[in-house]
């Protein structure tokens, strides 16, 4: 069956004063109809750059997509004309960004901004307004009709993120890409937004890519998870499988370093020593090797490719330790 979205061998680099930064180094991922893919990783792991490249939102220069393809319903987004990609972005694949304070235009009314994607595809103004009211009510903004003439500064952070979501969903996209949409919000507001997105996803049957550094949110929302490190996907599995049987040492370390709200905290956290890599060279060896507790000689010489350890569970590791058994 054809995948809704299929990214193959994506590589993105940025020119900087210190040299070329290899932000994404060969990422491949698939997304099925109606599926939610979570991408986790720390700052600089390449998770945002991956989706931004896929949607051609990377500023070029300094950025450059060096290799790869990203096929949406069989057509390569990376080869489309500017006009075509704009059509896809506003209608079929929409994005919600991290910072609700700066992603809205402060001098345009909420109504103007929410209806814009519809007007771009030829919906009449009156009809667009009606749909905007419906959409704003759907995301939980009361008195939506009165708020059409409000400006973003009159809204709180949580409300603005709701407006962003309304804007992203108004064209009934096939895919919603969310880049840390709740990181700037408080937990109680985050819970509101996650609940809302979950409901809307189930109602509208869209697929989602949800980028975050918070494994808690992944556990709540995702069907499948890709873990990124050093510009590569190092592990990918169904969400239950990943949390129950993590096999990449980085994932194992990440899960061990998290305190749990629902258990007493007498356990010492297992910190991952060292620092994330500086990507001034394309990795020739495993990027995690210098911090890895299971490291072997081979890890410093060859970069492991993603390979299946079990049906639907892939890792990029020469060792694939079983935590608890292969202790150093």
């Amino acid at each position: 069956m054809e995948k809704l979205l299929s990214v193959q061998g994506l590589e993105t680099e940025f020119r900087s004063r210190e040299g070329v930064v290899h932000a994404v180094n060969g990422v491949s991922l698939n997304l099925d109809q109606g599926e939610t893919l979570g991408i986790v990783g720390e700052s600089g792991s390449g998770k945002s750059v991956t989706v931004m490249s896929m949607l051609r939102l990377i500023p070029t220069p300094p950025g450059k997509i060096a290799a790869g393809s990203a096929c949406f319903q069989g057509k390569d987004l990376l080869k489309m004309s500017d006009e075509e990609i704009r059509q896809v972005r506003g209608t079929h694949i929409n994005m919600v960004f991290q910072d609700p304070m700066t992603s809205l235009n402060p001098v345009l009314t909420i109504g103007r901004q929410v209806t814009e994607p519809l007007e771009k595809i030829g919906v009449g103004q009156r009809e667009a307004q009606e749909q905007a009211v419906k959409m704003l009510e759907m995301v939980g903004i009361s008195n939506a009709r009165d708020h059409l003439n409000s400006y973003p500064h009159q809204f709180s952070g949580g409300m603005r993120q709701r407006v962003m979501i309304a804007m992203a969903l108004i064209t009934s996209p096939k895919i919603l890409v969310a880049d840390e949409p709740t990181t700037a919000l408080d937990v109680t507001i985050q819970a509101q937004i996650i609940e809302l997105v979950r409901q809307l996803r189930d109602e509208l049957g869209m697929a989602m890519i949800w980028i975050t550094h918070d494994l808690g949110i992944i556990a709540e929302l995702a069907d499948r998870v890709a873990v990124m490190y050093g510009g590569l996907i190092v592990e990918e599995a169904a969400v239950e499988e990943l949390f129950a049987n993590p096999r990449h040492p980085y994932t194992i370390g990440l899960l061990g370093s998290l305190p749990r709200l629902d258990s007493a905290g007498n356990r010492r956290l297992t910190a991952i020593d060292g620092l994330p890599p500086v990507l001034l060279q394309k990795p020739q060896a495993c990027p995690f090797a210098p911090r890895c507790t299971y490291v072997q000689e081979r890890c410093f010489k060859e970069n492991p490719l993603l390979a299946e350890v079990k049906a639907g569970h892939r890792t990029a590791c020469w060792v694939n330790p079983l935590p608890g058994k292969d202790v150093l």
Partner: protein
Amino acid sequence: MNPDQPILQVKNLAKYFPIRKGIILQRTSGYVHAVDDISFDMRRGETLGLVGESGCGKSTAGRTIIQLYRPTSGNVIFEGTDLTGVSGSALRQTRRKIQMIFQDPYASLDPRMTVGQIIAEPMLIHHTHQGEQAKRRVQELLDMVGLATNYANRYPHEFSGGQRQRIGIARALALDPSLIICDEPISALDVSIQAQVVNLLEDLQRRMNLTYLFIAHDLSMVRHISNRVAVMYLGHIVELAARDELYENPLHPYTQALLSAVPIPDPKVRGKRQRIILEGDVPSPIHPPSGCPFRTRCRLAKDICAQVRPENREIRPEHYAACHLV
């Protein structure tokens, strides 16, 4: 000194910031009630977690305790001395024993000073160490926080966020304090680095018998590191209890909602937890609601909640909550 006596007593502490209007003839048109009548004790050697969402006053509380902000009213009694009653050199002398670790490791270190100068500065100000002695002490402190001793000659920009936070910790330890106010010390760090810093703080506490006031919004981390936890909302402490008691039997409706909102990194509990989704946003601290500060978002609110401010009452042994309905 009596070891059973609290190291720090905070009594009815309040901090209001004036809102000024006009350019030349400034009039005060109102106040931001950042911290409003909070009281608690801290025991020697414990970690008290202070949690709440942004704008609840937790950082202001920390800064008012250490007298970076002078309080509007109330008392802060540290090892028997009321800090609100002293100033100038007397305050400086007392405050030596209280240090602070800040949230932003990029803004809290002077970029023009070397790491050695940053860590030595408190010692020079307080004349505890000089010259060679100070140098040796800096190396000792670097070693204590897990940094190489030759880093003393480098500048902050050469270090990552986690390493900078270690430098900030070394500076806080320079005067051999007994109480450290940790103001969101790990929120700016990546997940894998957070655990490194938390483990370091725990090791240092054990070695030096430190007392921590740990201010944070990450409820999972606060459960991990604290002995007792206080929950703040809109300038008030609404609940205070021993860690496991608070997380397992939260009494205040706000604490219950807050805890239920935290995502748990385990897909097996998905859909099985009871979620209390709060409606709306936190009210403005300029015009806080009458009575209970939480009543505008509380699903249980009754008439009395709008009329009378609930006092913190001991509802179970050592478990305090400010709610009429528990």
